[in-house]
Protein backbone atom coordinates (compact mmCIF):
# COMPACT_ATOMS: atom_id res chain seq x y z
CA UNK A 1 0.00 0.00 0.00
CA UNK A 2 1.10 3.53 -0.58
CA UNK A 3 0.67 6.52 1.67
CA UNK A 4 -1.32 9.59 0.68
CA UNK A 5 -1.10 13.09 2.00
CA UNK A 6 -4.00 14.27 4.10
CA UNK A 7 -4.70 16.82 6.80
CA UNK A 8 -5.72 16.39 10.40
CA UNK A 9 -7.74 19.22 11.90
CA UNK A 10 -7.88 19.32 15.69
CA UNK A 11 -10.39 21.32 17.69
CA UNK A 12 -10.10 21.55 21.47
CA UNK A 13 -13.11 23.12 23.09
CA UNK A 14 -15.93 22.76 25.62
CA UNK A 15 -17.90 19.54 25.59
CA UNK A 16 -21.18 21.43 25.44
CA UNK A 17 -20.56 22.73 21.94
CA UNK A 18 -19.19 19.47 20.60
CA UNK A 19 -22.47 18.66 18.92
CA UNK A 20 -22.41 21.95 17.06
CA UNK A 21 -18.80 21.45 16.03
CA UNK A 22 -19.57 17.99 14.68
CA UNK A 23 -22.41 19.40 12.64
CA UNK A 24 -19.97 21.83 11.04
CA UNK A 25 -17.57 18.98 10.31
CA UNK A 26 -20.24 16.98 8.58
CA UNK A 27 -21.59 19.98 6.70
CA UNK A 28 -18.08 20.63 5.38
CA UNK A 29 -17.92 17.08 4.08
CA UNK A 30 -15.85 15.18 6.64
CA UNK A 31 -16.48 11.45 6.53
CA UNK A 32 -15.88 10.89 10.22
CA UNK A 33 -14.26 12.23 13.36
CA UNK A 34 -12.80 11.09 16.64
CA UNK A 35 -13.52 12.59 20.07
CA UNK A 36 -11.43 12.33 23.20
CA UNK A 37 -12.26 13.68 26.66
CA UNK A 38 -9.74 16.26 27.82
CA UNK A 39 -8.87 18.72 30.53
CA UNK A 40 -6.76 21.79 30.11
CA UNK A 41 -5.92 25.33 30.83
CA UNK A 42 -6.16 28.32 28.57
CA UNK A 43 -6.78 32.02 28.60
CA UNK A 44 -9.94 31.54 30.64
CA UNK A 45 -7.79 29.94 33.24
CA UNK A 46 -10.12 27.07 34.07
CA UNK A 47 -8.84 23.57 34.49
CA UNK A 48 -11.36 21.02 33.48
CA UNK A 49 -11.08 17.28 33.79
CA UNK A 50 -13.95 14.94 33.44
CA UNK A 51 -12.87 12.41 36.03
CA UNK A 52 -13.40 14.27 39.25
CA UNK A 53 -16.95 15.23 40.18
CA UNK A 54 -17.73 18.50 38.52
CA UNK A 55 -21.12 19.92 39.02
CA UNK A 56 -21.32 21.05 35.46
CA UNK A 57 -20.04 18.28 33.31
CA UNK A 58 -20.70 20.07 30.04
CA UNK A 59 -17.88 22.50 30.76
CA UNK A 60 -15.18 19.85 30.51
CA UNK A 61 -13.05 19.89 27.36
CA UNK A 62 -13.10 17.61 24.37
CA UNK A 63 -10.52 17.15 21.67
CA UNK A 64 -12.05 16.50 18.27
CA UNK A 65 -9.91 15.23 15.43
CA UNK A 66 -10.94 14.98 11.83
CA UNK A 67 -8.90 13.66 8.94
CA UNK A 68 -9.64 15.26 5.58
CA UNK A 69 -8.12 14.66 2.18
CA UNK A 70 -8.32 18.21 1.19
CA UNK A 71 -6.52 21.08 2.88
CA UNK A 72 -9.14 23.57 1.75
CA UNK A 73 -11.82 21.57 3.52
CA UNK A 74 -9.68 21.51 6.63
CA UNK A 75 -9.28 25.26 6.57
CA UNK A 76 -12.98 25.74 5.98
CA UNK A 77 -13.70 23.69 9.08
CA UNK A 78 -11.27 25.70 11.15
CA UNK A 79 -12.66 28.98 9.93
CA UNK A 80 -16.26 28.09 10.52
CA UNK A 81 -15.67 26.70 13.99
CA UNK A 82 -13.60 29.69 15.02
CA UNK A 83 -16.12 32.08 13.52
CA UNK A 84 -19.15 30.48 15.09
CA UNK A 85 -17.81 29.66 18.53
CA UNK A 86 -14.48 31.10 19.55
CA UNK A 87 -15.73 34.58 20.36
CA UNK A 88 -17.94 33.22 23.13
CA UNK A 89 -16.55 29.80 23.99
CA UNK A 90 -13.04 28.71 24.92
CA UNK A 91 -11.22 26.75 22.28
CA UNK A 92 -8.30 26.37 19.92
CA UNK A 93 -7.89 24.73 16.54
CA UNK A 94 -4.89 23.63 14.53
CA UNK A 95 -4.07 21.57 11.48
CA UNK A 96 -1.32 19.05 10.81
CA UNK A 97 -0.01 17.13 7.83
CA UNK A 98 -0.50 13.40 8.05
CA UNK A 99 -0.24 10.48 5.68
CA UNK A 100 -3.00 7.94 5.31
CA UNK A 101 -3.74 4.61 3.71
CA UNK A 102 -6.96 4.15 1.72
CA UNK A 103 -7.69 7.77 0.73
CA UNK A 104 -11.11 6.76 -0.59
CA UNK A 105 -12.22 6.21 2.99
CA UNK A 106 -11.98 9.96 3.58
CA UNK A 107 -13.92 11.03 0.52
CA UNK A 108 -17.63 11.45 0.27
CA UNK A 109 -19.35 9.45 -2.40
Amino acid at each position, binding site marked *: MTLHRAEKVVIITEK*MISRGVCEILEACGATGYTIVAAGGKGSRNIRMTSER*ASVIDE*FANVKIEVIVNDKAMGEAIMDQVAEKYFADYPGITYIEDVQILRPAKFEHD
Partner: protein
Amino acid sequence: MEFVLDFLSRLITQFQSPTLGFLIGGMLVAALGSNLKIPNAIYQFIVFMLLMKIGISGGIEIRQADLSAMLLPALSSIVIGIAIVLLGSFVFSLIPSVKREDGIATAGLFGAVSASTLAAAIVLLEEESILFEAWVPALYPFMDIPALILAIVLANIHLRKTSAGKESKVDVAGIVKESLRSSALSALILGLALGLFTRPDRVLETFYEPLFRGFLSILLLVMGMEAYARLNELRRVAHWYAVYAFFAPIMHGLMAFGLGYIAHLATGFSPGGVILLAVIAASNSDISGPPTLRAAIPSANPSAYIGASTSVGTPVSIAVCIPLFIALAQVVFEL
Protein backbone atom coordinates in the same frame (compact mmCIF):
# COMPACT_ATOMS: atom_id res chain seq x y z
CA MET B 1 -37.22 38.92 70.12
CA GLU B 2 -38.18 35.43 71.05
CA PHE B 3 -38.27 34.66 67.36
CA VAL B 4 -34.77 35.96 66.95
CA LEU B 5 -33.54 33.85 69.84
CA ASP B 6 -35.38 30.83 68.51
CA PHE B 7 -33.87 31.39 65.09
CA LEU B 8 -30.37 31.87 66.48
CA SER B 9 -30.57 28.75 68.62
CA ARG B 10 -31.91 26.88 65.62
CA LEU B 11 -29.07 28.17 63.46
CA ILE B 12 -26.55 26.92 66.00
CA THR B 13 -28.21 23.50 66.07
CA GLN B 14 -28.21 23.58 62.31
CA PHE B 15 -24.47 23.96 62.31
CA GLN B 16 -24.39 20.64 64.06
CA SER B 17 -26.68 19.07 61.52
CA PRO B 18 -24.68 16.67 59.40
CA THR B 19 -26.39 18.12 56.33
CA LEU B 20 -24.67 21.42 56.80
CA GLY B 21 -21.63 19.66 58.19
CA PHE B 22 -21.01 17.88 54.91
CA LEU B 23 -21.35 21.14 52.97
CA ILE B 24 -18.87 22.93 55.19
CA GLY B 25 -16.68 19.82 55.26
CA GLY B 26 -16.51 19.93 51.48
CA MET B 27 -15.48 23.57 51.53
CA LEU B 28 -12.76 22.89 54.06
CA VAL B 29 -11.51 19.87 52.15
CA ALA B 30 -11.15 22.04 49.05
CA ALA B 31 -9.71 24.98 50.96
CA LEU B 32 -7.03 22.80 52.52
CA GLY B 33 -5.99 21.53 49.11
CA SER B 34 -6.92 17.91 49.77
CA ASN B 35 -6.71 15.36 46.99
CA LEU B 36 -9.98 13.81 48.08
CA LYS B 37 -12.22 13.38 45.10
CA ILE B 38 -15.67 11.99 44.52
CA PRO B 39 -15.61 10.37 41.06
CA ASN B 40 -17.76 12.10 38.50
CA ALA B 41 -19.66 8.89 37.76
CA ILE B 42 -20.68 8.67 41.42
CA TYR B 43 -21.73 12.30 41.52
CA GLN B 44 -23.90 11.94 38.43
CA PHE B 45 -25.46 8.78 39.78
CA ILE B 46 -26.23 10.42 43.11
CA VAL B 47 -28.02 13.33 41.46
CA PHE B 48 -30.01 10.83 39.42
CA MET B 49 -30.93 8.80 42.51
CA LEU B 50 -32.04 11.83 44.52
CA LEU B 51 -34.23 13.16 41.72
CA MET B 52 -35.71 9.74 41.01
CA LYS B 53 -36.63 9.38 44.67
CA ILE B 54 -38.20 12.83 44.75
CA GLY B 55 -40.00 12.10 41.50
CA ILE B 56 -41.30 8.65 42.43
CA SER B 57 -42.58 9.80 45.83
CA GLY B 58 -44.22 12.77 44.17
CA GLY B 59 -45.79 10.67 41.46
CA ILE B 60 -47.26 8.22 43.94
CA GLU B 61 -48.73 11.08 45.92
CA ILE B 62 -50.11 12.92 42.91
CA ARG B 63 -51.97 9.72 42.02
CA GLN B 64 -53.99 10.08 45.17
CA ALA B 65 -53.84 13.83 45.56
CA ASP B 66 -56.59 16.34 45.19
CA LEU B 67 -55.38 18.03 42.04
CA SER B 68 -57.14 21.28 42.87
CA ALA B 69 -54.94 21.61 45.97
CA MET B 70 -51.92 21.69 43.70
CA LEU B 71 -53.21 24.49 41.53
CA LEU B 72 -52.43 27.43 43.73
CA PRO B 73 -48.91 26.30 44.69
CA ALA B 74 -48.15 25.53 41.05
CA LEU B 75 -49.32 28.96 39.98
CA SER B 76 -47.36 30.53 42.80
CA SER B 77 -44.27 28.72 41.59
CA ILE B 78 -44.61 30.13 38.10
CA VAL B 79 -45.24 33.62 39.45
CA ILE B 80 -42.25 33.42 41.78
CA GLY B 81 -39.93 32.16 39.06
CA ILE B 82 -40.91 35.06 36.83
CA ALA B 83 -40.81 37.64 39.59
CA ILE B 84 -37.32 36.62 40.66
CA VAL B 85 -35.94 37.05 37.16
CA LEU B 86 -37.64 40.41 36.60
CA LEU B 87 -36.53 41.70 39.95
CA GLY B 88 -32.99 40.46 39.61
CA SER B 89 -32.57 41.79 36.10
CA PHE B 90 -33.85 45.15 37.24
CA VAL B 91 -31.52 45.25 40.25
CA PHE B 92 -28.48 44.33 38.17
CA SER B 93 -29.46 46.90 35.53
CA LEU B 94 -28.91 49.55 38.18
CA ILE B 95 -25.28 48.53 38.64
CA PRO B 96 -23.14 50.05 35.89
CA SER B 97 -20.23 47.67 36.35
CA VAL B 98 -22.40 44.66 35.53
CA LYS B 99 -22.86 43.75 31.88
CA ARG B 100 -26.56 43.60 31.08
CA GLU B 101 -26.71 39.98 29.94
CA ASP B 102 -24.54 38.82 32.83
CA GLY B 103 -27.05 40.27 35.26
CA ILE B 104 -29.99 38.70 33.46
CA ALA B 105 -28.31 35.30 33.36
CA THR B 106 -27.55 35.51 37.08
CA ALA B 107 -31.15 36.42 37.87
CA GLY B 108 -32.23 33.47 35.71
CA LEU B 109 -30.10 31.07 37.67
CA PHE B 110 -31.53 32.33 40.96
CA GLY B 111 -35.04 31.97 39.61
CA ALA B 112 -34.28 28.38 38.68
CA VAL B 113 -34.11 25.57 41.22
CA SER B 114 -31.42 23.45 42.88
CA ALA B 115 -31.96 19.75 43.37
CA SER B 116 -29.39 19.53 46.13
CA THR B 117 -30.92 22.33 48.19
CA LEU B 118 -34.34 20.79 47.73
CA ALA B 119 -33.10 17.38 48.85
CA ALA B 120 -31.40 18.91 51.88
CA ALA B 121 -34.66 20.63 52.87
CA ILE B 122 -36.56 17.36 52.55
CA VAL B 123 -34.14 15.59 54.88
CA LEU B 124 -34.22 18.43 57.39
CA LEU B 125 -38.01 18.52 57.42
CA GLU B 126 -38.05 14.81 58.07
CA GLU B 127 -35.59 15.31 60.88
CA GLU B 128 -37.89 17.91 62.43
CA SER B 129 -40.90 15.66 61.74
CA ILE B 130 -42.62 18.42 59.79
CA LEU B 131 -45.00 16.89 57.26
CA PHE B 132 -45.50 18.09 53.69
CA GLU B 133 -47.40 16.94 50.63
CA ALA B 134 -45.06 14.65 48.70
CA TRP B 135 -45.97 16.40 45.47
CA VAL B 136 -44.46 19.70 46.57
CA PRO B 137 -40.98 18.88 45.26
CA ALA B 138 -42.66 18.31 41.91
CA LEU B 139 -43.23 22.07 41.77
CA TYR B 140 -39.55 22.25 40.78
CA PRO B 141 -40.11 22.56 37.00
CA PHE B 142 -42.96 25.04 37.45
CA MET B 143 -40.51 27.55 38.81
CA ASP B 144 -37.37 26.41 37.02
CA ILE B 145 -38.49 26.46 33.42
CA PRO B 146 -40.32 29.82 33.34
CA ALA B 147 -37.36 31.47 35.07
CA LEU B 148 -34.82 30.14 32.59
CA ILE B 149 -37.00 30.97 29.61
CA LEU B 150 -37.68 34.48 30.78
CA ALA B 151 -33.98 35.12 31.39
CA ILE B 152 -33.10 33.90 27.93
CA VAL B 153 -35.85 35.99 26.33
CA LEU B 154 -34.80 39.12 28.20
CA ALA B 155 -31.16 38.63 27.30
CA ASN B 156 -31.99 38.15 23.67
CA ILE B 157 -34.21 41.20 23.54
CA HIS B 158 -31.38 43.18 25.05
CA LEU B 159 -28.77 41.78 22.67
CA ARG B 160 -30.96 42.43 19.66
CA LYS B 161 -31.42 46.01 20.69
CA THR B 162 -27.69 46.62 21.03
CA SER B 163 -26.34 44.66 18.05
CA ALA B 164 -28.95 44.97 15.34
CA GLY B 165 -26.68 42.64 13.41
CA LYS B 166 -27.78 39.14 14.36
CA GLU B 167 -31.42 38.43 13.72
CA SER B 168 -31.80 35.65 16.22
CA LYS B 169 -35.32 34.74 17.25
CA VAL B 170 -35.84 33.27 20.69
CA ASP B 171 -37.03 29.73 20.30
CA VAL B 172 -39.21 29.32 23.40
CA ALA B 173 -40.39 25.83 22.49
CA GLY B 174 -36.79 24.84 21.92
CA ILE B 175 -35.76 26.10 25.34
CA VAL B 176 -38.59 24.27 27.08
CA LYS B 177 -37.63 21.11 25.26
CA GLU B 178 -33.94 21.49 26.14
CA SER B 179 -34.86 22.12 29.79
CA LEU B 180 -37.04 19.05 29.97
CA ARG B 181 -34.31 17.03 28.30
CA SER B 182 -31.65 18.09 30.79
CA SER B 183 -30.47 15.21 32.91
CA ALA B 184 -31.90 16.71 36.10
CA LEU B 185 -35.43 17.39 34.86
CA SER B 186 -35.48 14.15 32.89
CA ALA B 187 -34.76 12.17 36.04
CA LEU B 188 -37.40 14.05 37.99
CA ILE B 189 -40.03 13.58 35.32
CA LEU B 190 -39.12 9.94 34.77
CA GLY B 191 -39.56 9.39 38.49
CA LEU B 192 -42.90 11.21 38.46
CA ALA B 193 -44.12 9.12 35.55
CA LEU B 194 -43.04 5.89 37.22
CA GLY B 195 -44.77 6.97 40.40
CA LEU B 196 -47.93 7.91 38.53
CA PHE B 197 -48.26 5.01 36.12
CA THR B 198 -46.59 2.04 37.81
CA ARG B 199 -46.54 0.62 41.33
CA PRO B 200 -42.94 1.28 42.35
CA ASP B 201 -43.66 1.37 46.10
CA ARG B 202 -41.41 -1.54 46.93
CA VAL B 203 -38.37 -0.44 44.98
CA LEU B 204 -38.88 3.02 46.44
CA GLU B 205 -38.95 1.69 49.99
CA THR B 206 -36.13 -0.78 49.62
CA PHE B 207 -33.75 1.25 47.49
CA TYR B 208 -34.40 4.87 46.64
CA GLU B 209 -35.59 5.96 50.08
CA PRO B 210 -32.99 4.29 52.30
CA LEU B 211 -30.14 5.65 50.19
CA PHE B 212 -31.54 9.20 50.01
CA ARG B 213 -30.05 10.64 53.17
CA GLY B 214 -26.65 9.07 52.62
CA PHE B 215 -26.35 10.09 49.00
CA LEU B 216 -27.41 13.60 49.93
CA SER B 217 -24.54 13.75 52.42
CA ILE B 218 -22.09 13.02 49.61
CA LEU B 219 -23.75 15.42 47.23
CA LEU B 220 -23.41 18.19 49.80
CA LEU B 221 -19.74 17.35 50.14
CA VAL B 222 -19.36 17.80 46.39
CA MET B 223 -21.34 21.05 46.46
CA GLY B 224 -19.07 22.33 49.21
CA MET B 225 -15.93 21.44 47.28
CA GLU B 226 -17.37 23.08 44.19
CA ALA B 227 -18.41 26.19 46.12
CA TYR B 228 -14.84 26.71 47.24
CA ALA B 229 -13.37 25.92 43.84
CA ARG B 230 -15.57 28.51 42.14
CA LEU B 231 -14.70 31.28 44.61
CA ASN B 232 -11.73 32.13 42.42
CA GLU B 233 -13.99 32.80 39.50
CA LEU B 234 -16.30 34.88 41.63
CA ARG B 235 -13.36 36.99 42.72
CA ARG B 236 -12.62 37.91 39.14
CA VAL B 237 -16.04 39.51 38.62
CA ALA B 238 -17.71 42.49 40.28
CA HIS B 239 -18.32 41.97 43.99
CA TRP B 240 -21.94 42.92 43.45
CA TYR B 241 -22.58 39.35 42.37
CA ALA B 242 -21.60 38.10 45.81
CA VAL B 243 -23.80 40.68 47.49
CA TYR B 244 -26.77 39.72 45.35
CA ALA B 245 -26.10 36.03 45.86
CA PHE B 246 -26.10 36.48 49.59
CA PHE B 247 -29.36 38.43 49.96
CA ALA B 248 -31.40 37.23 47.03
CA PRO B 249 -32.10 33.70 48.32
CA ILE B 250 -33.47 35.09 51.57
CA MET B 251 -35.70 37.61 49.76
CA HIS B 252 -36.95 35.06 47.25
CA GLY B 253 -37.67 32.55 49.98
CA LEU B 254 -39.62 35.08 52.02
CA MET B 255 -41.64 36.08 48.95
CA ALA B 256 -42.52 32.45 48.36
CA PHE B 257 -43.24 31.90 52.02
CA GLY B 258 -45.84 34.66 51.75
CA LEU B 259 -47.51 33.16 48.70
CA GLY B 260 -47.38 29.75 50.31
CA TYR B 261 -49.07 31.18 53.39
CA ILE B 262 -51.90 32.46 51.21
CA ALA B 263 -52.24 28.96 49.72
CA HIS B 264 -52.27 27.63 53.27
CA LEU B 265 -55.18 29.86 54.16
CA ALA B 266 -56.98 29.26 50.86
CA THR B 267 -56.56 25.54 50.27
CA GLY B 268 -54.91 24.16 53.37
CA PHE B 269 -51.41 23.92 51.90
CA SER B 270 -49.37 22.30 54.67
CA PRO B 271 -46.77 24.24 56.71
CA GLY B 272 -44.10 21.82 55.49
CA GLY B 273 -45.23 22.56 51.95
CA VAL B 274 -44.88 26.28 52.57
CA ILE B 275 -41.34 25.78 53.83
CA LEU B 276 -40.42 23.66 50.83
CA LEU B 277 -41.89 26.18 48.42
CA ALA B 278 -39.82 28.89 50.09
CA VAL B 279 -36.69 26.75 49.82
CA ILE B 280 -37.36 26.03 46.15
CA ALA B 281 -37.61 29.76 45.56
CA ALA B 282 -34.51 30.50 47.62
CA SER B 283 -32.47 27.89 45.81
CA ASN B 284 -30.58 28.56 42.61
CA SER B 285 -29.89 26.08 39.87
CA ASP B 286 -26.49 24.51 40.07
CA ILE B 287 -26.73 21.53 37.75
CA SER B 288 -28.96 22.01 34.75
CA GLY B 289 -29.38 25.78 34.69
CA PRO B 290 -25.80 26.75 33.85
CA PRO B 291 -25.43 24.74 30.64
CA THR B 292 -28.87 25.90 29.47
CA LEU B 293 -27.91 29.54 29.97
CA ARG B 294 -24.46 29.01 28.52
CA ALA B 295 -25.94 27.61 25.33
CA ALA B 296 -28.68 30.20 25.01
CA ILE B 297 -26.80 33.35 26.11
CA PRO B 298 -23.28 32.58 24.91
CA SER B 299 -22.03 36.11 25.43
CA ALA B 300 -22.84 36.13 29.14
CA ASN B 301 -19.84 35.41 31.34
CA PRO B 302 -20.30 32.03 33.07
CA SER B 303 -17.81 32.94 35.80
CA ALA B 304 -20.24 35.62 36.97
CA TYR B 305 -23.42 33.62 37.21
CA ILE B 306 -21.92 30.27 38.19
CA GLY B 307 -19.61 31.82 40.75
CA ALA B 308 -22.49 33.73 42.34
CA SER B 309 -24.75 30.75 42.38
CA THR B 310 -22.44 27.89 43.37
CA SER B 311 -20.10 29.71 45.71
CA VAL B 312 -22.54 31.91 47.58
CA GLY B 313 -26.13 31.22 46.60
CA THR B 314 -26.20 27.51 47.35
CA PRO B 315 -24.38 27.67 50.69
CA VAL B 316 -26.65 30.55 51.78
CA SER B 317 -29.83 28.78 50.75
CA ILE B 318 -28.81 25.60 52.56
CA ALA B 319 -27.14 27.07 55.63
CA VAL B 320 -29.24 30.18 56.19
CA CYS B 321 -32.54 29.85 54.38
CA ILE B 322 -33.60 26.35 55.37
CA PRO B 323 -33.25 26.93 59.12
CA LEU B 324 -34.70 30.43 58.76
CA PHE B 325 -37.86 29.22 57.04
CA ILE B 326 -38.26 26.32 59.45
CA ALA B 327 -38.00 28.70 62.38
CA LEU B 328 -40.40 31.10 60.71
CA ALA B 329 -42.91 28.35 60.11
CA GLN B 330 -42.68 27.21 63.69
CA VAL B 331 -43.59 30.68 64.84
CA VAL B 332 -46.20 31.39 62.17
CA PHE B 333 -47.94 28.03 62.25
CA GLU B 334 -47.25 27.43 65.95
CA LEU B 335 -45.74 24.00 65.20
